[in-house]
């Protein structure tokens, strides 16, 4: 089973990107399941994604890259057994470290092919770097695809693109507006998902 993990800081637009991707994937006849992870006790995003009528598993009250990592692997195993989707989409919390997810799958989820997309809110990027630089760098480093989002609000500067590309370490960097680019997003992302995360 292919697992597509969406990382990115709180409010970066992961849910909107995922919703657009799902619409395209369903149109292509792909079978999809979703895991939603929230640090809080109540999920909001499942109400938005539920519009697509897809089975959503919510993992709340913790982060799957650390405190409830076992729940993620257990849920993935169960989804593979019961639904066997073409893609299991995992929306990580905005505080999830991608290295934690990679380590988790490398150690306990070797049977899955893990791909990752990191969504960046370019409108807040520079200010957020001042507050939580290590987290943002971790989320960008090593993801299969980096999506610079909210370009409808702020166009990234050349310096920002350079820095993000450097942090991405050779992974493709896409500029987009999840609000406006709609179903084009999945075409852009899937064309660049060439190989799963190194295990």
């Amino acid at each position, binding site marked *: 089973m292919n697992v597509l993990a969406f990382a990115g800081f*709180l*409010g970066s637009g992961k849910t909107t990107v995922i919703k657009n991707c799902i619409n395209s994937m369903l149109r292509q006849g792909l079978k999809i399941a979703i895991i939603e992870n*929230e640090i809080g006790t109540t999920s909001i995003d499942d*109400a*938005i994604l539920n519009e697509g009528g897809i089975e959503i598993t919510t993992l709340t009250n913790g982060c799957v890259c650390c405190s409830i990592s076992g729940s993620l692997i257990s849920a993935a195993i169960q989804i593979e057994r019961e639904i066997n989707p073409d893609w299991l989409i995992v929306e990580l919390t905005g505080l999830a470290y991608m290295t934690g997810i990679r380590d988790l799958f490398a150690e306990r989820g070797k049977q899955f092919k893990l791909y990752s997309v990191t969504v960046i809110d370019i409108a807040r990027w520079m200010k957020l770097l001042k507050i939580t630089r290590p987290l943002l760098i971790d989320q960008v480093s090593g993801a299969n695809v980096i999506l610079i989002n909210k370009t409808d609000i702020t166009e990234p500067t050349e310096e920002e693109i350079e820095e993000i590309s450097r942090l991405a370490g050779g992974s493709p960097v896409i500029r987009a507006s999840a609000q406006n680019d709609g179903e084009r997003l999945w075409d852009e992302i899937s064309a660049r998902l060439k190989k799963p995360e190194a295990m």
Partner: protein
Amino acid sequence: MIKEENHHRHSDHKCDVPDCTDHHRHHGGHVCGDPDCTDHRHHHHVGQKCGDPDCAVCHDEHEDLINDSLVISHTRSFSPGRAETTDSLREKGIKTFLRLGDLVSFEGVVAGHIKGVIRTEGGGLAFSLTRAGVVDVTELGGWKGLGEIRAYTMTVNVMTLLHADITEEDIFALMA
């Protein structure tokens, strides 16, 4: 598979994972500076801690990040004395989120995310705020076709890395 850290310590530490074959293997190419050291490698399995309170590998910055954050996640039911319309409820929701944004924003942005959803029997409204003064609103289900709204629930999740002096009561008082 062993989680390899770039960081290492000179240590006699052995992990307690029974099938681990990675104890005391030299970390290739890396020198810790101790001429007598024969084991430059300090490793951890996912989620494992070595027990050394000073170990920088075990020091969980992520846990600190979450523990130091403001997390409010709460749902409340409303049955207003006077029925709401879709427009009046939308306005109340927007005002609530704008106020919350003012309370938790830093240099015009939220160091996190404020999101919420109003649910009624026939549809709902989702709210999202990451910058002070700007609320994104998404209609869910059959929101447009709703008439008078006599009962609804509201869920609000506030998550920010910077401290803000707000409580659940403050949030929902704004909806009253």
